[in-house]
């Protein structure tokens, strides 16, 4: 069971509180997590990654196990601790003020 933490604005859009638990078939990657998330919550399509290109939106970042995974390949397998649900997969709205 994968545990995903969404930023507050996306929790509001999806009408959820707390973290999301998803069944994601192996291999667990950024791509497969986001696919499962968007199936469960179709209102999040286009808000994390572009509808057409499937590229991460510039001010959205992905973290897990204390590491910034934003620029990793979306198809790279994630660590066992994320795949097992011990660690959360964090989707973060970048701090981009100015």
């Amino acid at each position: 069971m994968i545990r995903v933490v969404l930023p507050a604005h996306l929790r509001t859009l999806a009408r959820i509180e707390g973290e999301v638990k998803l069944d994601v078939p192996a291999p667990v990657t950024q791509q497969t997590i986001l696919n499962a998330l968007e199936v469960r919550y179709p209102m999040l399509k286009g808000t994390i990654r572009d509808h057409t290109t499937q590229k991460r939106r510039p001010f959205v970042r992905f973290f897990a196990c204390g590491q910034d995974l934003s620029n990793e390949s979306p198809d790279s397998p994630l660590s066992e601790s994320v795949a097992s649900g011990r660690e959360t997969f964090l989707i973060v709205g970048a701090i981009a003020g100015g």
Partner: protein
Amino acid sequence: MQNWGRGERMSKVRILVGTKKGAFILTADGKRKRWDVSGPYFGGWEIYHMKGSPVEPNRLYASQCSGWFGQVIQRSDDGGKTWEQPGSSLGEAEGTPPGEATTTPDGMPKGESNKFVYDTSPGGGKALTTHQWYDGTQHPWEFKRVWHLEPSLTDPDTVYAGVEDAALFRSTDGGQTWQELAGLRGHGTGPQWAPGAGGMCLHTILLDPRDPQRITTAISAAGAFRSDDGGKTWQPINRGLRSQYIPDPNAEVGYCVHSIAMHPSRPNVLFMQLHWDVMRSDDAGESWHEVSGNLPTDFGFPIEVHAHEPDTIYVVPIKSDSEYYPPDGKLRVYRSRSGGNEWEPLTRGLPQRDCYVNVLRDAMAVDSLDPCGVYFGTTGGQVYASVDAGDNWTPVVRDLPAVLSVEVQTLS
């Protein structure tokens, strides 16, 4: 005994306010003296525009966007009390056979209400992929946001969206899916279009109540365009406009149109706030002539027409295209009762010193009561109302986030 004016009894006015940090809905009875304020809806998001269906007034559409999470379309069917993203909830998919237009093969909602994809299919001049960039080179068309939503005059499920980078989209399923009317970008001048300071946005959509095939749009900084066949084919309608800041001041396109207004009883007469100059057309945009007259400055953004007097129009003069605030720190709406040229300042109730706000292009609207109500919002977060066609003004709210848009519904 209550002293009701004509049209006030049993009527209600609803102001839809889009701001930099959420949406607000202001409501009052026909007297328009006491206002209830609800919101913020979608707190923290930019609400570029909200508008209700003329045939089903509790059906509202809203453009919600953010630099982080992109575009979201919201729809309400209860006048703004509750909202949903069309085609995104499981409830909507229930009863729909899997694989139908708005569901996946698994029977899940497709969640495509915020999917705006430019039509680059070949044929009909549609294969347009680039426009002019600031340095004169060609630049790919990139969707950024929806500036304006214009619900159909006859069908609550049909709504048009004017977007940045400039294009016109239409939904016929209540905002669940969108298709570009690609003949606008593809009619021939598209590669010459260039963004203005605010981006290259399609911000004005006028639907002709007498001719359902006629649509008029305006784009910064390309100009005005008209379709007479329901959006299939388009032509520029910029003859008579002048832009001193482009190499050919009388070019077919290249005009920073800020807003266009039309009275529904006289759809061939159009009033335009051009970047500089207030213009008028008496032939549906075939030709334009200047009606700036005695305005203190002819720069500004919004332009509106009185609900019952087709020759009474309103603008808010702004000092210049770099300062973006009212002349002399005095916030003045100007009204012409003669269709332009002769203008009078309307100041009663508006700040006449130390006021340096702006009024954006979609931030002015009128109700259809008698006397006509006029409303506008400022970048300082005030929404002002006049219930006597502009003679006197009062602030409905003073401290909202910067106002991006104001629309008004008159409800019976």
